[in-house]
């Protein structure tokens, strides 16, 4: 999942089938949304409004980045107080956003697959001095 290229986008698991994932996205400002399967079929739930995958994506993003940062990135202002995932979704769907273009899904999905394949690589015990540039951060995890 990432806030990049003017979108919140990421891969969301199917609730029922472990071999299926969805690539969901919401554009900043317009909230134009898109959702398609890993086989590039449009998601049946994302007609007219946000499907469950897009809602789940907002929930995950709020967990990872915090509601405020997500709201700021998507330019979604929630009335009063601290935003949360539910308020964000309701503000965005309230503007009746358009269906967006799903062409960005392919690179997002291929990156997801590439990283999934990392699980099959062997750990090594030869030192990687370059990792000194990437300290663990208690706050990010």
């Amino acid at each position, binding site marked *: 999942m*990432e806030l*990049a*290229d003017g979108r919140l986008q990421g891969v969301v*698991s199917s609730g029922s089938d*472990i*071999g299926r*994932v969805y690539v969901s996205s919401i554009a900043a400002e317009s909230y134009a949304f898109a959702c398609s399967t*890993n086989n590039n079929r449009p998601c049946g739930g994302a007609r007219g409004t946000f499907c469950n995958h897009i809602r789940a994506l907002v929930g995950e993003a709020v967990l990872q980045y915090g509601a405020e940062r997500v709201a700021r990135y998507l330019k979604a202002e929630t009335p009063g107080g601290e935003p949360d995932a539910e308020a964000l979704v309701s503000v965005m769907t309230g503007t009746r956003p358009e269906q967006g273009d799903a062409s960005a899904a392919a*690179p997002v999905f291929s*990156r997801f*697959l*590439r*990283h*999934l*394949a*990392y*699980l*099959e*690589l*062997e*750990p*090594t*015990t*030869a*030192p*990687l*001095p*370059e*990792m*000194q*540039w*990437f*300290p*663990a*951060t*208690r*706050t*990010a*995890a």
Partner: protein
Amino acid sequence: MRTDLLTDPVDGLDEALAAVDAFDRVLVAGLLRPQPAQAAGLAALAHFVAGTPLASLVPEAADKAAAGAAGEDHLVALAAARTALMGSVHDALTDRVADVTGRPRAERSTRDTPADAPGANVLAAARAWLCDLARAGWQGIDHELVAGAGPVVSAMLPDPRLRRQATLLDGFAAELAASCPGATLEHVPVRRWADLWTRALLLTLPGAARTPAADTVTGRLLPLGVDVQEHATAVQAQVHAVLEPSDGSAPRLVRAAVSAPKPDTVVGAGLWQLLRPRMSLLGAVGEGRAVELDAMPVTAEGDLVWDDERARTGEFADPFATARVILSTATDPETAPLDRHPVGIAVPVLVEGYTAEREDDGPLTFTVAGHRLAVDTARVPAASPLSPETVAASGACLGLLRWDAGEFVLQPLAVETTVRKKTVAVHAGAWAGGTTDKVGARAEKAATDSVAVLRERAGKLLRK
């Protein structure tokens, strides 16, 4: 420990870093159509290496780059000059650290090993990508350009001999991708990206990433603590330890690392789970035990290249006892010439008798004999019982002395605190081998479940 020396100015440091900064600013706008200010930055770098073996190459490279005509060799020469400058900064800082700790330095072993230069084609592809980056500049990056690193990384990762290059490029490219397009970027991490670009470019040269384990060591390994490094798709755990050689020679500081690529969703306790099976040392560290080594391979830089077959978990060994009794007599390892960079400074020290202070939400500092030492509690891994609060309440700290953003800082590896009038030690790597702690065990369980789902998914999606 002479903490008073930590805040003394280091001669020549500011001048060297100013030349580095001048070059780094050149990379912001890129070398496609260089402006006069960029020519000046390139000249500043060239000026600094006059009188070194690079003196003939670098001015020519700077001229070509200033004219917008830099080829790969020219960019490599500029990267070499910047590396030499950072190397001199590194040397000045490690000399200072040696004065602070009062410890002897190991003699550099100069044994030659046969050159091994794997992956020439993919390294050439990496070099071409890095040169394109330098031409585009950080303000010129876009997704298409950054995505060019993807196939290079995928081709490198399966070969363990190219892990250094692959892991660096992967982390660097991900950072760049998150900042695309560069044209609208508000804040450019100028020094950091120039650091990563420079190291990545030099690592594409044949033999540059060579860390041959030319020797072996036999003796008792007394762990001090674990340092964890990670980016979204890689993790490395590095154990710092004192080795007591069985031949009676002087104790020496060594490290043992284990690393792995990973999906970005594997975090926290999942990192320990990924690394644990490959290095029994993590289990020994978690239990607070020494390890007996029998002919363990070691590099000239004091990095053990861990092999479980050559290690046997031994008796309990308190890291604080090791630090109090042996650390001050142990020799510090040398750094490989190309790896000399301030970011690599991570020197085990024991700090005691301090007053911990924290102003509101500001950083924690230890005041030792009237001198302030900043404490970096953020570097403690997520799956660890060592919290910033515990560090703030501590009376003794075993940590790594680092140099960050212009000052020395202390990264805690473990602290001693007093609980109900008893001294207890809390270690950053306490959960490295697993844990029975309630919070830790819950994190372990969640990580096990999420990795199981990922592996099943990988099975289904990757072999379709």
